[in-house]
């Protein structure tokens, strides 16, 4: 058998999660000594593929070859031993431990039964010096920046002599100068023969570092090829074009009225989280304003701050022309803002309580005259169940037992018991079956018709295009552009171009 020219080869990988086919016959061929960029929209299946490579997930179908040898089922530890290291998007270093302890965690050099600290610190320092990293082996991890943590992860990958290093959006949390340091390491690793699999959304990065590109869409392989065959236009056109049926576009006859809500120069400084800056936009009654962008663009964080869940540092917020200061969620609710969070199990519902209790939670005052009037709650619950077509046995069922679509409807019902002027929906149809999805879209049009202003964050471009009167595209905490329904740019390509443009810092 001839020796494979690829260090890592994945063939026809299929992975099914309940309800979705996350990967549907994806191939990947990685050459040694190359930087291989994987492109695709949010949810295209990139991270799933990486987790199959490193053993976090087991593929339902398909084969994996490492240096030409077929690899059967494997654990994370197996892949690490083989020489495949993965640097996750969200790092979890043990901050209280030293750099050396973090690098050798779980595989500490031993002398007899005990850890050989002397060797550990000596080896670590040698490694750091070789990589020209400005850190000391005995420094505590919390003294390092996030980029520092990334670089230590790379050092760790090198310390296991990895021949393949997977990096999942390593640049998402670090600044420009730190990116340069990261790239320098990547290039020198590549030149020494290590293969780097690099996931990113940023066009400028892709074309600086990529040798090969693989494009995935909807869990399927779109195409692969050497980087010099692509330019940003071509790449974006291959990435977008996800097809999602069951979008129920907004009825364009719904009248769009006066400005109901406005935000001016809203900024969150670093001390408050630093996730967005200088955000200004207007929202009209009857309008659905889409917020598009890649994961991590700061859309959810912006909305959380507007809703009073997080702080913002400066800027102003106006409701119906009057300036308001929102200090907590109660302020926001009293002023007519409602927010349906992207993670409804964490922020939407009290899972072990009944539908009855969940629906009444926001506007408890309405149901209380001295004591709670549970009959009134039951009546409203009944109305909501009918209006939103929530499928439940009875109102005493625990919210946690419902399907995703029904849970989302209960969250909506909770808000509709009150007087909502501004409805913020963060990924309103994520993880919801197609039937419920279009029902929620229909409801959104209905709410707009009643005069609500709706803000919808969505990472599904067809949904953004179908539902939004205008789309605001965010990237790395700033607004990259605002597109109206009648503009030529209102296409998946137009939005993606803005979302991946690259931010000057």
């Amino acid at each position, binding site marked *: 058998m001839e020796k494979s020219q690829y260090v890592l080869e994945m063939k026809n990988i299929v992975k099914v999660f309940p309800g979705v086919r996350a990967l549907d016959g994806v191939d990947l061929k990685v050459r040694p000594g190359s930087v291989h960029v994987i492109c695709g929209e949010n949810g295209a299946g990139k991270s799933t593929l990486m987790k199959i490579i490193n053993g976090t997930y087991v593929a339902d179908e398909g084969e994996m070859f490492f240096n030409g040898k077929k690899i059967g089922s494997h654990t994370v530890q197996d892949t690490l031993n083989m020489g495949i290291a993965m640097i996750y998007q969200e790092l979890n270093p043990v901050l209280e431990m030293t750099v050396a302890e973090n690098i050798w965690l779980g595989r500490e050099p031993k002398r007899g039964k005990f850890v050989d600290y002397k060797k550990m610190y000596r080896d670590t320092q040698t490694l750091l010096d070789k990589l020209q990293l400005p850190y000391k082996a005995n420094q505590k991890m919390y003294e390092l920046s996030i980029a520092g943590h990334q670089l230590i992860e790379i050092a760790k990958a090198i310390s296991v002599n990895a021949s393949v290093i997977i990096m999942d959006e390593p640049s998402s949390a670090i600044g420009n100068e730190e990116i340069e340091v990261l790239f320098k390491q990547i290039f020198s690793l590549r030149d020494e023969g290590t293969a780097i699999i690099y996931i990113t959304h940023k066009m400028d990065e892709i074309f600086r570092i990529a040798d090969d590109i693989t494009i995935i869409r909807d869990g399927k392989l779109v195409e692969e090829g050497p980087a010099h065959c692509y330019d940003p236009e071509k790449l974006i056109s291959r990435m977008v074009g996800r097809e999602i049926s069951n979008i129920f576009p907004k009825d364009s006859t719904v009248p769009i009225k006066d400005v109901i809500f406005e935000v001016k120069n809203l900024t969150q400084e670093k001390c408050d989280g630093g996730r967005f800056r200088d955000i200004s936009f207007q929202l009209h009654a009857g309008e659905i304003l889409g917020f598009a962008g890649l994961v991590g663009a700061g859309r959810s964080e912006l909305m959380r701050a507007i809703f009073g869940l997080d702080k913002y540092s400066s800027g102003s917020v106006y409701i119906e022309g009057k300036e308001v200061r929102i200090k907590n969620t109660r302020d926001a609710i009293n002023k007519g803002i409602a927010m349906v969070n992207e993670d409804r199990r964490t922020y939407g519902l009290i899972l072990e309580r009944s539908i009855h209790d969940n629906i009444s939670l*926001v506007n408890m005052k309405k149901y*209380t005259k001295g*004591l709670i009037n549970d009959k009134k709650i039951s009546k409203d619950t009944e109305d909501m169940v009918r209006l939103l077509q929530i499928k439940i046995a009875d109102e005493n069922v625990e919210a946690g037992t419902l399907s995703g679509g029904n849970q989302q409807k209960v969250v909506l019902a909770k808000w509709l018991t009150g007087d909502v002027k501004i409805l913020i929906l963060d990924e309103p149809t994520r993880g919801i079956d197609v039937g419920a999805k279009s029902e929620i879209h229909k409801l959104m049009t209905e709410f707009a018709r009643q005069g609500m202003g709706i803000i919808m964050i969505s990472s599904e471009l067809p949904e953004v295009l179908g539902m939004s009167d205008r789309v605001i595209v965010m990237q790395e905490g700033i607004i990259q552009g605002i597109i109206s329904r009648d503009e030529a740019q209102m296409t998946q390509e137009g939005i993606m171009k803005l979302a991946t443009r690259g931010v000057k810092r």
Partner: protein
Amino acid sequence: MEKKKINIGQFYGKYGIFIILAVIFVVSSVAVSGFLSMYNIMNILLAIACTTTLALGATFIIILGNINIAYGSELAFVGCISCIVNVKTGSLLLSVAVAIIMGLALGALTGFVITKFSVPAFIMTLALTEAARGGAVLVTDGNTISNLTKSYTFMGQGYVGPIPMAIIILAAAFVIMWIILNKTPFGRYIYAVGGNSKAAEASGIKPARIIFIAYLIDGVLVGVASLLLMARLNSGVPGAGLTYEMDAITAVIVGGTSMSGGSGTLFGTIVGAVIVGIINNVQTLIGVDSNVQRVVKGCIIVLAVIIDVISKKSMKKSR
């Protein structure tokens, strides 16, 4: 329609505790002579009156996912001050007011430190256990306060008809607490914050505020319980109330309130308290050594939590 599933875990969660009580009661009545008499039943209730009053407050605190382990020392501190006031002024009203105000103050302090500085409730109330006990000895100079007024001791020793006054006070506290937990927005918010604090906040509830108020209410019950204890002891004893937090928390846990927060009922707590009371009473009647009784109590707590965890798991499975 989503099907409603009933399984053993859910069934236990709803009715298990009542069945256990019934079984224990019937078995005790048949097997233990001297158990089934009005006198003995009243004795059991009287013995648990003070700790059950505490357990009502502890139910709120534990549904919130918090804890208070300082009850014993708080009782001594608050009770002794109230006794001093009683002896000095002879006024029942003043001594009751002082007990409740001091209880409130301790609750406010606890709630404030926990919510404002994010000190874990366990640590704060552990510290309070030490501090309040010291306070009790300081205010009394280590002496027992005797010569309480008749009206004062009536709260712990008196009878209205066949019913002990302490039971009436407990019953009144239970009714008020039940209404607060089940019929006021605050009560619903306790379940919401305990079940999912983040979702509660996203629904316009201020979790810290709910926790603070719960500790205030808990403090009021400490005040009431301290009156019951000192009145029953006939004097203000700075060393009184030792390990009472054990009995209060045991009642809550045996009563089915989850230590991880979010679920539990006051009926459960009362039943839990009675179960523990009966087990103690029976052991005394058949002459079990008191230290053996403590071992048994320890086992009951662990058993109750194991059952809670298992029933929760089987509930999750049914989802």
